């Protein structure tokens, strides 16, 4: 099976401090990987480095077998950032924002056609926010904004999804529905998912694999292997390992 993501010896520095040290792992189509670790472990930096959003000091990243520096198939990549970085005054409607997710497939001048309207509606319906399409983004609650940004990430039907703390602004009911959507995409469409979270217990319910990062890779493998690993028992202690694993299904 060809790799969707190949990370080899990836290192990153910020203000002369090592943020990531020689990270290596591979992800394939259909993988659902929970990226976890303590605060300041470099989880968000790792996601951004894989997307070319931060400079790396060593190693390499390949997406779909192509070096990141040469990568051009951005329509295969969906990204939901940790914090939405936009002004609440922004006068764009939900439809316009979600449409931005389709620009990856367009050549200049990038114009959206009637077929694109249908894709936008489909993404909005998938996330249960079809009724919000004409609303301005600044008029929505934090949870609704998060779903709009997820719709933007999904509208081009990506083959890999990078989700950085996607449920932080969602209430428990919406969180459940959010995870159901991601699970369906992962299982039915074999979309590879990398989901960053600080909630080790929750991710165990959803992800099949665990990438535990603390500037370096502490563990990468199946959740079930993590839960019986003596090495991880030594690292985390029996109690913590049990807490991480008790919700895994």
């Amino acid at each position: 099976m060809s790799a969707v993501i190949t990370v080899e010896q990836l290192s990153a520095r910020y203000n002369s401090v090592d943020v990531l040290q020689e990270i290596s792992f591979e992800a394939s189509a259909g993988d659902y990987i929970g990226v976890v670790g303590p605060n300041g472990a470099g989880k968000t930096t790792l996601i951004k480095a894989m997307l070319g959003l931060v400079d790396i000091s060593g190693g390499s990243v390949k997406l779909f077998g192509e070096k990141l520096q040469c990568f051009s198939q951005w329509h295969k990549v969906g990204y939901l950032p940790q914090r939405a970085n936009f002004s609440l005054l922004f006068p764009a409607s939900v439809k316009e924002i979600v449409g931005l997710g389709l620009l990856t497939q367009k050549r200049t001048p990038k114009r959206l056609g009637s077929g694109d309207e249908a894709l936008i509606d489909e993404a909005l319906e998938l996330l249960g926010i079809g009724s919000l399409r004409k609303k301005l983004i600044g008029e929505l609650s934090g949870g609704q904004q998060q779903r709009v940004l997820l719709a933007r990430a999904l509208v081009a039907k990506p083959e890999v999804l990078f989700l950085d703390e996607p449920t932080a602004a969602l209430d428990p009911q919406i969180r459940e529905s959010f995870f159901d959507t991601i699970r369906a995409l992962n299982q039915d469409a074999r979309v590879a998912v990398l989901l960053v979270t600080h909630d080790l217990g929750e991710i165990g319910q959803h992800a099949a694999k665990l990438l535990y990062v603390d500037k370096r890779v502490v563990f990468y493998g199946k959740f079930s292997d993590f839960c019986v690993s003596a090495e991880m028992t030594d690292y985390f202690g029996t109690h913590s390992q049990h807490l991480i694993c008790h919700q895994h299904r």
Partner: protein
Amino acid sequence: MIMDFLSVLQFAFVQRAFLGGCVIAVLCAILGLFLVLRKMSLIGDGLSHVSFGAVALGLLANMSPLYVALPLVVLASFAILKLTEKARLYGDAAIGIVSALGIAGGVILASVSRGFNVDLFSYLFGSILSIGNEELVLAVALSAVVLVVVAVFYNDLLAVTFDEEYARVSGIKTARVNMLLMALTAVTVVLAIRVVGIMLVSALLILPAATALQLARGFKGALLISALAAVTAVIVGICISIVLDLPAGGAIVAVNLVFFLAALGVKKAVG
């Protein structure tokens, strides 16, 4: 009085003022919206201050100030961008540095020449009613170029303005789009100096956009409202200036301010 006013409208210099002013107002309104939303509103101020130095240089060298200012202000806009990226400065500090350099250069050149202070004054406060045929043709041609470029790169500009990081993940060359926005803004600022003057250029960039942000229900709607407000303000402002014998630049900015306050009132009343 109405007949007097209508007869004034038949003068070629008044017609040139209306045409040039409206075209430049549309440019300012459209680019202003992108700049305001990117929290770069004061770049208009910074670049107009650079224009001050460039105009002084043009007058000193006995060349058309417009032709001297265009390349220099475009270069200054790239310098602001590079300072922000490479010198790890926030945008306002980078604008401040380049702006101060422009003013300092202008003051020194004005002091050295001792002869063109009156001409420089007309650039400081604008003189749309004295715009010549050659300037009008240049303004219309450059405006057409800017509008076509904005139309072609509309979605790239929108994506980068909304969320630059995500735009990069969409495969958009954000550095190029930023340079494009800077260059277009620089050209627009130089053209707008004729309408309202160096001191008031930023008002022409900010006020129509601020008006649109009170009323718009979508980004294209915001661009349309911004452009309509700006064009109307130029027409009404020039008319007021003719009837009341006031400076056109000041009148245009005052009308823009009234529109903004009215939009604010409408927004409060409606919602």
